[in-house]
């Protein structure tokens, strides 16, 4: 080492070319570009793209299940000449397949944020032009986009199938539009909750378990209590109980505003007034998730 260093010191810059170090004179695209790069890397990562073959299995499988169910529904619709519309509403699809969506969030939210926290890569991001807000926004948007692909793609399949089956164009387009708005809301809500839970539990197994707990146990609890309320004739409570789990929140919002039929016991669902409360809670949860993430990353800065 010492001899090499000795000669190099003696002749400064003239040696740079000999050794082959090339400096970089090209453009530096800055903060917005870095944020976009982080977004696309995280979005691709949610489906295992750019990661090991092993990590592609689960997200691809879940995505496949969603699409397969949609294809089966389309096949049924086409094979049954008497049908004039799809066997299910667009807005029902995500509610029926919530377990698949829950698994996707539980497996991918931790890989999106917990990895950086567990392996302490976060300081490497924050020693670069991007700021905390860029990191949080990119991760949030990427997770929400991944969920939108997961939940929106089957709806697109249903819609295309419905048009091929020559169902009423106006009806189908309206239903499809309502379904897309609903899954968009669901994606943002689930992404926020999933990321918050994952960011607060950097340890691998915990994150997955905690996300499943938040999404499915709350649903189990809420629907059980709702069923009890239905049995005991206190139907008024059913609507308000729905505020306490993510999937029933979405159910409530789409029943109130998006022409969905509620999966609540009795099939009533909230009216417009209660629907506003549902919408407010959803938006508050999304905003709250964002705020918690920002706080979380202030602590781990460097």
């Amino acid at each position: 080492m010492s001899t090499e260093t000795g000669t190099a010191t003696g002749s400064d810059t003239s040696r740079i070319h000999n050794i082959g170090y090339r400096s970089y004179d090209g453009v530096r695209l800055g903060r917005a570009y870095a944020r976009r790069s982080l977004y696309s890397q995280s979005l691709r990562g949610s489906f295992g793209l750019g990661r090991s073959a092993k990590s592609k299995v689960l997200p691809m499988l879940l995505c496949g299940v969603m699409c397969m169910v949609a294809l089966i529904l389309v096949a049924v619709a086409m094979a049954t000449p008497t049908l004039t519309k799809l066997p299910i509403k667009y807005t029902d699809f995500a509610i029926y397949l919530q377990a698949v969506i829950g698994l996707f969030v539980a497996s991918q939210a931790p890989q999106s944020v917990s990895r950086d926290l567990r392996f302490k890569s976060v300081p490497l991001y924050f020693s670069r032009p991007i700021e905390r807000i860029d990191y949080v926004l990119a991760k949030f948007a990427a997770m929400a986009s991944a969920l939108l692909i997961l939940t929106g793609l089957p709806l697109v399949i249903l819609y295309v199938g419905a048009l091929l089956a020559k169902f009423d164009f106006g009806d189908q387009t309206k239903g499809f539009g309502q379904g897309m708005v609903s899954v968009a809301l669901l994606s943002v809500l689930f992404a926020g909750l999933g990321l918050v839970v994952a960011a607060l539990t950097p340890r691998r197994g915990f994150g997955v378990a905690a996300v499943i707990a938040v999404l499915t146990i709350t649903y189990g609890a809420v629907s059980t209590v709702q069923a009890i309320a239905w049995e005991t004739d206190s139907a008024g409570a059913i609507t308000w109980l729905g505020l306490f789990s993510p999937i029933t929140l979405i159910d409530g919002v789409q029943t109130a505003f998006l022409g969905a039929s509620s999966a609540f016991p009795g099939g009533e669902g909230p009216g417009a007034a209660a629907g506003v409360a549902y919408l407010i809670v959803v938006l508050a949860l999304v905003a709250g998730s964002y705020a918690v993430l920002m706080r979380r990353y202030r602590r781990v800065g460097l």
Partner: protein
Amino acid sequence: MAPATSVVDVTVIATESLSKRFPRVTALDRLSLDIGPGVTGLVGSNGAGKSTLIKILLGLSPATEGRAAVLGLDVATEGAAIRERVGYMPEHDCLPPDVSATEFVVHMARMSGLPPTAARERTADTLRHVGLYEERYRPIGGYSTGMKQRVKLAQALVHDPQLVLLDEPTNGLDPVGRDEMLGLIRRVHTDFGISVLVTSHLLGELERTCDHVVVIDGGTLLRSSSTRDFTQTTTTLAVEVTDSDTHPDGTDALRRILTGAGIKLVGHDGVDAEGLPGAGHILLVEATGEETYDLVRDSVAELGLGLVRMEQRRHHIAEVFRTARTAEAAMTVAAGAGQQKGSGRDEH
């Protein structure tokens, strides 16, 4: 972009009575520094304020009072611009085990704003320069500590910064890995033209690597001067000669003739040549100028001995550091024993 020559005479890092106080601790206490281009060592024990200083320099943590500028940019207002031109290598592990070095460094290059193609090219170049070849396609989880440190260095260099901040880069490395890392750090400046601020709590290893050493302790500046000042105030020559038939003990013969010529010898019987191989046969000669070299050469020739080696023995930073601290201690405490020990070391 800027090789070292174009930033000569420009201050790379400047701080002015920079303080950082936490509710219970004062991490930095009115620290004023002026660091030029080159390799600068930031020395201090654990908790001396090194990491706090780095955070402030990256514009990630506001100073309680005082000002700091990096590459002429104010840390308080131009943090993003600083971070675009500066690379940072953290002390702790920061690499995900499940991706390859290439994938990881490409991603980090893009985070620094490099377009996709440039990011890939720069990654390949940089990994080669830090000495990672075929293994760069394998997942990082299987790397040795030395290889991981190289990846960490590569991600700090990939966007061709003008300055890199390296926090304890030799941590956890074995002696060989340590030497290689130090050599690499030296090359970052000499070959790549990138200024370096490297922290360490080991003074000795910075001696060979740094042009300039800053010693901080308890958040205050203890000493800042060039490595040359530290190590070359007086030159000591280590001389080793062979024995011959006429002079069965060549070392002793040379000692006598040199002493006779009025040359001051440091220590005796090789006591102070500790650490050098063949210590018993080495004379430490205090060189006062060119003529000392000539005298040693002539004396050896006169005696008909073989000159095995004659080399400059530099002072170690550790000694100077110890002196600085004992001097300080002496001023305040005036403890006889400590002072004696300190001045004893001063002589060679």
